[in-house]
């Protein structure tokens, strides 16, 4: 049973070998229904509340990387080769609570307790990855966990308190050996009544698999595909999983660009991007919660082509290109040309997005990307605007402007860009560019905002960009406002 058709993962030191599950079985359902481990909860089945948070441990260099993910939208076969840690795993051999758990008790961090296992697992992931997190790092670590009872204050207190106890160290040597023993080296193939699932381990294998089944669903992080199953009850008869193709898991620097591979998580992709472009800090922080960013991939966000994908406006402004691959070879496109229409991308049969290439930082570029929503943490943009401006003598030498949430695809504001070219970088100078925005876009009214608000805010974000970068810059965002 150890062959190509068996998923192997570690749970509490034991290898679980699963050969008889539908490929779209979620980790959450497997835990609750097959294993009877009911500590992990379903709150929303869409990765938005965090009640189902579990931690994945993987080999990373010489060590082990622990990351929180949402079990509710993670398909079980994607655990292949990894170790799963759930809330039931945390007590010590003597039954003692883990510091994350103990702190939650002592700080009164649980009331109804239903979100608590998820918070505990996010705290555990933080505990394993950061020994001295500041207040903002703590908030970020918890930004994917909703609590309806406490107001979060005692949970924030627990996040600090857990470091005050004697450190509890996982036995990493043993886990490393166990992980090495189940390391994925073969192509996992599941075929059953629930559908087929193929996880090639090379790019060539991927291309071949896709050539064979061009209509297969391409799965990477699953933070969107998961919802097709849990929310829309769609059947996915044919899945090709990218995650085990290790060639796609790197961020390479070549030809003056960062090449971000298809399986690089949003967490790692933003880390690489922020090293070049610290100005993208707010969009990186607000993009999504850590469990989503740990599972989801930047290339998935780009390939998915949602009009409200928050990475694309900034990437378009930076002149990013996509590298598309099929059995015949690769081709490259400017990112903005990849989007043809609502959820329709320039993808040929058998093609998948292999990487996104982002030019490296250059001096003098003013870059901003702003997200407008109803909530700071984990929200979907009403409008997401990005601006890349180069100035010469107080005038705009070059400008790229792109928006999400304003059209059927992420799109450049070409009229606005034209009007900015050569304009003075001041209020009067940008007035024609703001006027041009009105003809660049015809936004819609939906549950997130009215068309009027979208249009108004898109224009005002250019004002904000100016205010933040003008000679006498002022704080122009409530999020960065210092008291």
């Amino acid at each position, binding site marked *: 049973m150890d062959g190509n058709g068996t998923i192997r993962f570690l749970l509490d030191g034991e290898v679980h070998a699963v050969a008889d599950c539908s490929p779209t079985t979620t980790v959450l359902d497997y835990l609750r229904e097959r294993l009877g481990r009911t500590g992990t909860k379903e709150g929303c*089945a869409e990765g938005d509340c965090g009640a189902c948070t579990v931690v994945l441990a993987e080999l990373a260099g010489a060590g082990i990387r622990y990351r929180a993910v949402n079990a509710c939208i993670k398909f079980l076969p994607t655990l292949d080769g990894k170790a799963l840690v759930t809330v039931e795993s945390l007590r010590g051999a003597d039954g003692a609570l883990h510091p994350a758990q103990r702190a939650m008790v002592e700080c009164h961090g649980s009331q109804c*307790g239903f979100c608590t296992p998820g918070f505990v697992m996010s705290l555990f992931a933080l505990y394993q990855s950061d020994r001295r997190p500041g207040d903002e790092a703590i908030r970020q670590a918890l930004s994917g966990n909703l609590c309806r009872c406490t*107001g979060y204050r005692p949970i924030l207190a627990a996040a600090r308190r857990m470091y005050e106890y004697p450190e509890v160290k996982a036995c990493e040597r043993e886990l490393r050996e166990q992980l090495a023993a189940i390391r994925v080296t073969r192509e996992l193939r599941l075929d059953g009544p629930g559908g087929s699932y193929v996880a090639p381990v090379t790019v060539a294998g991927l291309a071949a698999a896709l050539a064979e089944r061009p209509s297969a669903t391409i799965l990477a992080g699953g933070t969107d595909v998961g919802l097709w199953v849990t929310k829309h009850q769609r059947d996915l008869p044919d899945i090709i999983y990218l995650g085990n193709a290790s060639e796609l898991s790197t961020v390479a620097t070549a030809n003056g660009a960062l090449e971000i591979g298809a399986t690089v998580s949003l967490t790692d992709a933003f880390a690489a991007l922020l090293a070049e472009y610290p100005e993208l800090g707010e969009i990186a922080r607000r993009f999504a919660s850590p469990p989503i960013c740990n599972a989801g991939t930047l290339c998935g966000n780009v390939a998915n082509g949602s009009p409200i994908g928050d990475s694309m406006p900034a990437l378009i402004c930076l002149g990013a290109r996509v590298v598309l691959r099929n059995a015949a070879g690769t081709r490259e496109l400017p990112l903005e040309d990849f989007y043809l229409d609502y959820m329709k991308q320039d993808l040929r049969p058998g093609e998948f997005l292999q990487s996104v290439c982002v030019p490296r930082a250059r001096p003098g570029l003013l870059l901003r990307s702003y997200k407008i929503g109803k909530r700071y943490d984990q929200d979907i943009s009403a409008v997401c605007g990005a601006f890349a401006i180069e100035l010469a003598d107080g005038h705009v030498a070059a400008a790229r402007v792109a928006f999400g949430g304003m059209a059927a695809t992420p799109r450049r504001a070409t009229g606005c860009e034209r009007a900015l070219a050569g304009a003075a970088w001041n209020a009067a100078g940008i007035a024609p560019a703001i006027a041009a925005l009105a003809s660049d876009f015809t936004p819609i009214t939906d549950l997130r905002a009215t068309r009027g608000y979208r249009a108004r805010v898109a224009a005002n974000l250019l004002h904000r960009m100016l205010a933040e970068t003008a000679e006498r810059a002022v704080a122009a965002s409530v*999020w960065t406002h210092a008291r």
Partner: protein
Amino acid sequence: MPADRPERASSAIEGGVGEARPHESAELHVSGEAIYTDDIPLPAGTLHAAIGLSERAHARLLKLDLDAVQGAPGVVTVLTATDIPGENNHGPVVHDDPIFATGEVEYAGQSLFAVLADSANAARRAARLARVECQDLDPVLDARTALARESFVLPTRRLARGDAAAAIASAPRCLQGSLSVGGQEHFYLEGQVAAALPGEDCTMQVWCSTQHPSEVQRLVAHCLGWSSKDVVVQCRRMGGGFGGKETQPALLACIAALGAKKTGRPVKLRLDRDADFLVTGKRHPFALDYDVGFDDDGLIRGARLVLASNCGRSVDLSDAVNGRALFHADNCYFLPDVAIVSHRCKTHQPSHTAFRGFGGPQGMMLIECVVDDIARTLGRDPLEIRRRNFYGTDSRNVTPYGMTVEDNVIGRIVDELAARADYAGRRQTVAEFNASGGLLRRGIALTPVKFGISFTSTHLNQAGALLHVYTDGSILLNHGGTEMGQGLHTKVAQVVAEELQVDLRRIRCTATDTSKVPNTSATAASASSDLNGKAAQAAAQTIRRRLAEFAAAKYGVPAEAVLFRAGRVRAGEAADLAFEELVMQAYHARVPLSATGFYATPKIGYDPQTLTGRPFFYFCYGAAVSEVVVDTLTGESKLLRVDILHDVGCSLNPAIDLGQVEGGFLQGVGWLTSEELVWDERGRLLTHAPSTYKIPAVSDWPAVFNVELAPWSRNREDTIYRSKAVGEPPLMLAMSVFHAIRDAIAAAAGGGVPRLDAPATPERILAAIEELRGRNDPGRAA
């Protein structure tokens, strides 16, 4: 037995009254070992149900074709109205909520049928396959439209004192205004769930995540055509309730029980999050109007307040919700001549229901806007106008409904809070910041809360408890309240520990169970520790009295000389023994070691016809100062700091009470800022998951916060250890955030009275800034 603190000797035992103990289930919560309804292992062969939902908000049902549903993989059977042997109703008060709609559907999300399958997934997939033929009818989707069409679920109620119209007309100044306040989804993290296990001889065991097991019991019995004795409902804990599990779970329990009866197999029904949003009622949205007369110092002379609520399709709890809105339309303010009108509008939405505050918050929102608008009209600090209109302690202290406010501490709370939070100094700093220009504006506001405690349906103010003492001295406690995270079981167990002077760890509080304590009221109205604490105290006192009388007789001392302290019992000088020793002796002497306790709140009662009298045993008070910053380009806002001083009397458990204050506050902030329910023009809810409906997340808790329980407070009424209720009142502290946002909007526009509806989303804030700028400077382009 004195009910006051003199008897307290908490330091002598672990976990007595007043100690900041962790929640009784805290260790189970953090380890994942706490069992919720969906975690209960059910026998093999359990079926899973899903509800078939109406996609139309208002339509005449012509045909329900379930062939495809019946034939779907894994499906065992379907349930429709014809499968109901008893009454097709899950309405709690008026029998107007069908389990399965027939004839007409009245909201999108209404239950049409159910399907039972061998997995939840199979059931949910099958439920989508129904072919529903219907004729669309015109839906009514908001209170104002309903008002115009005279569409009501209940008749309009009016409460008046004096001659409001004359007082307004003769006042030196007057003002009119309007406000809409949105609804709110409860978003308990644990969705609605129930399971039913058929038993022998026409009996049914039901597990349900419910605040009201007795009502679930009654409604399940009625739909099965049985009586209450045939149904047992249990709930160990809920993953949050907030009012959303007061009447709403009955639908699920009824369907599960109907399925169990029909198939003879256990049936579980758990709504997924989207269905939960679509099926269940929300906090009532309100449309509010006022007409107020006042003098040049902002003292209110007369007010006419109109509260029109959107009740959704049926009555549910709307009579009581609107009653409470009416009883809180004064908040802390004396309204000499006043007329309050309460319209209960029928719309084609789910039947809106209980939600923490229960109409009180909506009533208070109106009067807070009245005083804020008066202040801004006069160019005064709103706090000055608020204080000027506060109830007095000796005069000006009678509410519009004729109840004298005897326990008024709002002045002291506000004075202390304003000083501690440096309201005046910070108001100056905010003004300076705003004067310095830029794109951001700050705002600050202090708002008070006065909230009446007791069910306004007077008969509900009763509770029972059952206490067993075993021969090893351990104690099993059961009472009628349910645990939804609020720490009720912890507090009630602390009361028993205190009464019997034993460590808390000796006591186990078991699942709420209709076969242990009957005819219970919902765990609601903030009153559950008051009611169940007193009932448990009575049971413990009975046990204690029996033990004392037994010891007195055995050791030849007067009963008064038998003292319980720190796990030991002393009978004068004659004996000093461990509690469990005495218990064992009493057992051998055939002393009953099980007792019930009962409590009925004294003093209360009012005339439901005239709406006057004493609906409340006492009031809770509190106040908050919030400071925000607002972006004038986008309308985004951020809460920077909050200071709260809240009155919980003598706290039974300060850690739990603090948690209620903080959590209630932030839940209120969500209601008034980020939580926006959006229905489309056909009456379909578009925001039905956390991806689209945004409750506060961790970054919404402010960086600076100072939350305190008033250390000096003590309930003047004889409540359990002189504590006060805490569940609902803190939610309304969030009005300070709404008014701080109004303050910032006014600053952004150069003064004036902002027109801002709730929730104050970025879009509404930006619109309010631009609208007020337009009014302030009509020449300026909007």
